Each structure stands twice: as C-alpha cells, then as structure tokens.
C-alpha cells in the first residue's frame, strides 16, 4: 500500500511527497531495493508508457524525473549499503557536428530513473571521445543521438570506431533522434534503434541483461 502510494506520487511528479514517502518506507522496514524495484522503477515505467502513448508531454516527464532524482537522493546511501548494483553502465552523447541535446537529456533521465548508471558526454562528441569514455567507464552500452539529418553519417563513424575498439561486440551501440530510423540503424550496423526515451530504456534492458 505504502509502495503503491509512492509509485502514484512519482507518476504525478510530486518530488516532495516522493522524498518523504521513500524515507517513511525505509523507516517502516522496506528495503532500499524493494522501494526501487517495486515502486520507483515501475512508476517510471508508467511515466514512460504515458509519454510514449502521447498522454504525457515533456513537462510531465521532467516533473517525474525530478521526483525520481529526489527519491534516489534519499535512497542512494541505503542502496550502497545493501550492495545493490546499478543495472548497467551506459555512455551517451549527441554525435559530432550536432549541438542538440534536449532529446538525449530525456533519454538520460529515463535511463537513470530506470536504474542505469549514465555518463553523459554532452553534445558534439567525437568518435574518439565515445571510445575513450567506453574504455574508462567499462560501459557495455553506448547511446548516440542526433537531431540533424546532416549529422547522421557521424553515427556510422562512431559505430565503426567502437567496433574497432571492441571487435568482440561486447559493447552495444544504440541510436536515436528525429531523423533516425530502424533502416538506418541496420544500415550502419547499430545494435538497436529507439524512437523515444522509453524505447531507449526497453532497448537498454534487452541489451544489458542483469549480470
């Protein structure tokens, strides 16, 4: 009941109530892991679904994300103490030549809200920087974003650079952005394409199965 209430407040984007309810849940004996897995992550799932179905817009998504971050701030010390590992590490950025990052930022929010650890490289990111960040963080998933149709070729270059660095294919590459299609993803050999932030989370879950 308590966790269901928490989930609802998260879906509504009420950050203060969410932070309070997380604290109360922990006090009343819920584990950090159950708060995360039974309330917060399913709550963000509902938010993602509503966004995908056109019931929620960017402001609702951002409010829910803000509430999710507020919850994680309360939860983090308890998660660390109980040794809960993140779902996986992801490196993400808008490709070289493209300065747009609103869409990518939504993907970061949804991935973090779903329990992934995300390194956001920002925009105008070169193939070398993607490779260096993957190496440094040990991420097994790299996300590429582009809004301009003119920067699509940069995605192909980045996929090739990552395959060169990791010929065994342990590092998966997912792509998204307004001009991106599944056909394009197939064409450049990316491991997946998502049309929005929710689809990116689904892809990340599929490509990074929990160890």
């Amino acid at each position, binding site marked *: 009941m308590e966790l269901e209430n928490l989930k609802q407040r998260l879906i509504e984007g009420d950050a203060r109530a969410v932070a309070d309810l997380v604290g109360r849940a922990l006090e009343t004996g819920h584990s950090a892991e159950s708060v995360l897995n039974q309330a917060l992550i399913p709550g963000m799932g509902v938010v993602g679904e509503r966004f995908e179905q056109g019931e929620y817009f960017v402001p609702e998504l951002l409010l829910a994300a803000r509430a999710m971050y507020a919850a994680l701030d309360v939860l983090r010390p308890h998660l660390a103490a109980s040794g809960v590992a993140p779902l996986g590490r992801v490196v993400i950025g808008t490709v070289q*030549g493209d300065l747009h990052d609103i869409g990518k930022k939504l993907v970061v929010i949804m991935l973090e809200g779903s329990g992934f650890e995300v390194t956001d490289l920002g925009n105008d990111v070169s193939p070398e920087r993607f490779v260096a960040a993957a190496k440094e963080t040990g991420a097994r998933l790299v996300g590429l974003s582009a809004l*301009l149709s003119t920067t699509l070729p940069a995605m192909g270059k980045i996929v090739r650079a990552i395959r060169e660095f990791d010929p065994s294919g342990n590092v998966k590459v997912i792509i998204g952005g307004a001009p991106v299609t599944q056909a394009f993803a197939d064409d450049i050999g990316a491991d997946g394409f998502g049309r929005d932030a929710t689809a990116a989370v689904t892809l990340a879950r599929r490509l990074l199965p929990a160890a």
Partner: protein
Amino acid sequence: MRVTSLIDDLVAEAPVLTDGAWGTELQRRGLPAGEIGDLWNLSHPEHVEEVARAYVDAGSRIILTNTFRANRIALERCREESHVEEINRAGVAISRRASAGRALVFASIGPSGKMLMTGDVDEAQLTAAFSEQSEALAAAGADGLVVETMTDLVEARIAVSAAVATGLPVVACMVFDAGKHRDRTIMGVAPQTAAVELTEAGAEVIGANCGIGVEAYIPICAALASATNRPIWIKPNAGLPEFVDGGLVYRMTAEQFAGHAPALISAGARFIGGCCGTTPEFVAALRRRLSLVAPLNH
C-alpha cells in the same frame, strides 16, 4: 487603433505566399554536416543569397532570413556568440538584396535550444537573447519578425514580447507534432492555447510551422483560427523523411504538397509556405495551385 497596417494590407491580398526551407537548400550548396547555417551569412553570403533569390523567383511575397539560430544562447554552443549582431544584420541584408523590392523580408527567430524547465536557461537570459536578436534584425531593416518552431509557450511568449518591442509586425508559430493526436507541441501546448496566448503577447499573425506534414496542419490551422481573430500563417514540412541509400528523402512532391493548399486556405490560412523538405519548386507549385500572380522578372 493598431499601429502597423502592413499585415492588414497583406491579408487584403491573401493568400500570401511565403518561402520554403533554407537549411536543406544551403546543404545542397555545400554547408557541412552539423554546421550552423546562420554562420554562412558571414562566410558564404553569395550562397545564402542564391537560396533567398530562388524563393523570390519562385513567387514568394515574403521571404525569411537565414537567422533561425542567431540568438546568443544557440550561438554560444558553437562559440560564435560574439557575432550575434553581425550575423543578424548580414541575414537581413542578404534577403533584402535577393528580394530587390520584389518581396518583403520577415526575419526568422528560432528557439534557444535550451529548456526553461530543466533550469538550463532562465527567463531573464531568454529575454536578453531574444531582445538582442530582435533589435539587431529591426535595426538592419527587416519588415517583420517571425518567431518560429517554438514548443514551449513561455519561451514563445518571451520571444514574441521581445520582437513586439521593436515595433515591427510579429508572426508567432509553434510546432504541433506530439501527443495522441499529434496536435500538441512536445511540451503539451494545444493550438487553441497557443493562439490565445500568442495573440495576448502581441503577435499580429499566429501560426504553425514544421511538424509531421501538410495534411496534419489542416485541422491545426482550423484550431488556431477558431481561437484568435489574427490571420493564420502555415508552413508545414513536406511530410516526414525516409532514409534511402544513405541519405534522407522527402517523398512528397511539390505538386502533392500544393494539392493540400486549398484545404489549408479553407481552414483559415492567410500566409502559406513550407518548412523542412520544401524547396523553391514547392513555392512555385503553391503559386500555380493557388493561381497567384507570377513573380516579376528582374
């Protein structure tokens, strides 16, 4: 009594043909992937002028300027913010030269590219950036200002207020392509709300640009027209692009696009043109379809 009568004069001759896309036209002339096209006002003015002239030749009564991204916040991302004034001034001068008295020059003002809600930018910064750009465009002699491709109503209102303060007539457009019925902006703004609020903010013309295609903008045009007494401005995309052989292709032809123009006009559009994927050929097709007067020779 309204101060400006330019819009009234234009509406008396409606439908008024505007222009089509600029970015894709500049790319065809060699604008490199990812480079902000506005910088070409300084580095390749001759190519920008070619695009502008092609629209005037095709029959545009109003052409825009290559200044969509030339606000301080957007230019900071490519470290060109010290050239705001120059880029905007050059943009108006180029369109003015290309029009050679045959078309009016309405200068383009696009979004900042940052979101108020995430705190990446605040209202004071937006006001400063849009005021700076509007003043530069007005000082350079623009006939009007077009605030376009907006998704956030707060940002749109700030830009419109800044533009209105110059005393020039202002067109205000948002992009409606999200939600269950693809009739909201990504921030959830409905056309009726946009029309009411942008009218209140002082825009003389209310509209929609970009989006998911020309058919989708017919009901949106009607929704805008139902909520304001201001004339409506519509510049839709040529549908959504498809990826073919390593490049993006807009499948819709100029004739198909122009075929929807009468329906847009019945829905209330008084100013009509195109956005992404449209070319001077689309403007010429609109002119023929609407039986508008051919451009003067020069």
